[in-house]
């Protein structure tokens, strides 16, 4: 788990600072289903990958999303 702030707090901070037009978020998480605390953040989260994960799959997805920028 991340210390101090969890992934959702981090995304809220990205949104609060107005970075969402430049930052794409891909979550890599141990939780197979996000809880309801993230309702309202869905448009800012491009993808959601659960552990255990294949590094090659993560790289493939990130490379794909880089073509969006």
């Amino acid at each position, binding site marked *: 788990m991340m210390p101090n702030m969890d992934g959702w707090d981090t995304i809220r901070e990205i949104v609060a600072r107005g970075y*969402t*037009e*430049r930052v*794409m978020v891909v979550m890599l998480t141990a939780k197979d*289903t*996000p809880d309801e605390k*993230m*309702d*309202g*953040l*869905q*448009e*800012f*989260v*491009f*993808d*959601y*990958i659960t552990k255990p994960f294949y590094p090659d799959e993560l790289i493939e*997805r990130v490379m*794909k*999303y880089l*073509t*969006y*920028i």
Partner: protein
Amino acid sequence: MAQRAENLVVIGASTGGPLILDEIFKDLPSLNVAIIIVQHIPARFIESLRASIYHPGGMAVEVAEEGRPLMHGVTSIAPAGLHLIIDKAAVFHLDEGEKVNYVRPSIDVTMCAIAKGTFHSLTGIVLTGMGQDGTKGLAHIRAIGGGTIVQDPRTCPIRRMPQSAIDADVVDTILAPSRIRGWLTGRYALA
């Protein structure tokens, strides 16, 4: 020559949607149907999404504009930050109303605004995503005589949106993304 739409498929997607849409639209030919995509995504990335799912020889892909009629062979993406409404004449309208299900555009708003009899054939599809957006929309589409499909939750980065619709008993068919492409092609192939 493009034809005003008598057939409509509305696809709703949230987190994880762009790659799933890629999979569905890859090698998808031009079809005898208008397709609408309501994807929760920041405005900055709409054009990238449009370019990503467009393939030469396939469906044309546009960002929906106020007052434009729906056409067969054209996929229209809802612009970020606006609800997308289709009127009884099968013409787009953009709405700055309140967020619904925490989002704008909302899949429910687009699907629920479709009036019975506007289209000869109507299907709602809900893909991967957080929350419950799309469940009420699919219920409405079914109530006015349309068909409902969700992405197989086992193939979803986040299963909650399709699972919500399944739990609400408003789903006709559960399909993996490649099967959704096959379904579209089989149902709406050009003569």
